[in-house]
């Protein structure tokens, strides 16, 4: 086993609600290597989002451990805030700060947490905005942006912290169909640069094209893990076949 390139190692992860009556996650073991683009798919309610949100402890797991860069972040003694700085997260509903300009949205965390100067943070932010084609919107407020623009800003806001891994929680699910493409393009270019990404999505096209691995989940457990081509062409489990037959024939 090459532990050197293993970025996240999840062992026996469980998340129960109501004293075990609801098992959102029921024992997950998984390893994410550096540079991987892991795409998590599965029917709704299968625990994909809960799993993703557990990785940076937005959901506190009931049981199990998560090793991030060799540190056990599920240990209450670990300073989770420090590790979260290295795990960028993009949400379904963007969650930009509505009272700040795009630029301020991007610079507040680097300035407050990394101790960057205003000039330094803004320079970095403008570079990133340039890359996603939104440099001219730097002084706009989030309410003045379209959904696709908001999500692109949300992605570069996370990138401003120079994370080691990016977590995407259904980044295109709240978008109008014609805006999905522009967000996926940003994600693709990010993947090309070798960013480690974990993506929960319903975009099977993206999974096929960009993913290095597909993780299929149902009822709180991982049913199948395979390379995208393998998964989409020859799914092994009954449930994966069933799921794919529902989402692919459109």
């Amino acid at each position: 086993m090459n532990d050197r390139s293993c970025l996240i190692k999840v062992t026996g992860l469980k998340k129960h609600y109501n004293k075990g009556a609801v098992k959102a996650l029921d024992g997950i073991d998984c390893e994410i290597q550096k540079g991987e683009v892991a795409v998590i798919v599965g029917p709704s309610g299968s625990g994909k989002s809960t799993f993703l949100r557990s990785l940076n402890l937005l959901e506190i797991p009931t049981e199990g451990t998560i090793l991030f860069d060799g540190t056990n972040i599920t240990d209450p003694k670990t300073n989770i805030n420090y590790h979260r700085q290295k795990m960028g997260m993009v949400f379904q509903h963007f969650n930009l700060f509505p009272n700040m300009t795009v630029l301020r949205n991007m610079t507040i965390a680097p300035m407050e947490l990394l101790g960057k100067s205003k000039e330094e943070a803004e320079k970095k932010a403008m570079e990133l905005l340039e890359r996603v084609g939104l440099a001219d919107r730097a002084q706009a407020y989030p309410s003045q942006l379209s959904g696709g623009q908001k999500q692109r800003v949300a992605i570069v806001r996370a990138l401003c912290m120079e994370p080691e891994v990016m977590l995407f929680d259904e980044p295109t699910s709240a978008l109008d169909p014609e805006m999905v493409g522009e967000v996926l393009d940003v994600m693709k270019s990010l993947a090309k640069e070798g960013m480690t990404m974990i993506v929960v999505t319903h975009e099977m096209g993206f999974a096929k094209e960009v993913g290095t691995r597909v993780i299929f989940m149902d009822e709180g457990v991982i049913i199948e893990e395979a390379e995208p081509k393998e998964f989409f062409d020859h799914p092994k489990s009954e449930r994966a076949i069933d799921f794919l037959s529902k989402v692919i024939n459109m």
Partner: protein
Amino acid sequence: MIFRRFIQWVVSLYTEFVSEFTFVFIEGNRYQQMIKGFLNTLKITGGALVMGVIIGVFIAAIRSSYDKNFESMRLRKGVGYCVLTILNGLCKIYLTVIRGTPVVVQLMISYFLIFVDTKDGVPVGIFAFGINSGAYVAEIFRAGIMSIDNGQFEAGRSLGFNYIQTMRHIIIPQMFKAVLPTLCNEFIALLKETSVAGYLGVVDLTKAGNIIGGSTFSYYMPLLSVALIYLVMVMVLSRLAGILERRLRKSER
């Protein structure tokens, strides 16, 4: 004819008003009482307002942290959970006691039981009204914090801000905007509530009107003046809040 009679009536009314005004306020420099009262009312209201907001922010932050993080903190256990539970309990007691007793009683308890040696009623008034207002402001702020989408907390936390930093940089600025109209309401209520400061031997605006009325045996001029001054103060206050609201709203164009 009727027109001339009307003019005469208006003129006589005016001269009567001027002589009454001169008698009540100018003679014996009684207007100085009014100015003193006005300033004291301003001092007590202003001081209590600042104190109330500071108390309110802290209590609201503690209470909403407890409400929001109760579940997850219990899972992670640790010292924070214990401290927060105790603080939350103390805040609840404070809110219950302050909101459960009349402000005049609190005022007199402060003056006659707590600050026995203080002769000047103004700082005592600021203290008592500040403590009182803090309880109401705290609940207003808490409602504001709870009304902000949980995604904002999550976005802040996922960037690496700790709980307090998330509150300070992301939640509280948004909360202020959300609660401004309600907060303005509370300030108006506070301003008018200070009219009972006379219980502390403070000459506030109301007391000044009362004193002048008592010494001139003419009540309508001083009392109506007092009412008018309160009205103007409230109008100015709500106008200022309106301006502030518009400025904060610029991000919603």
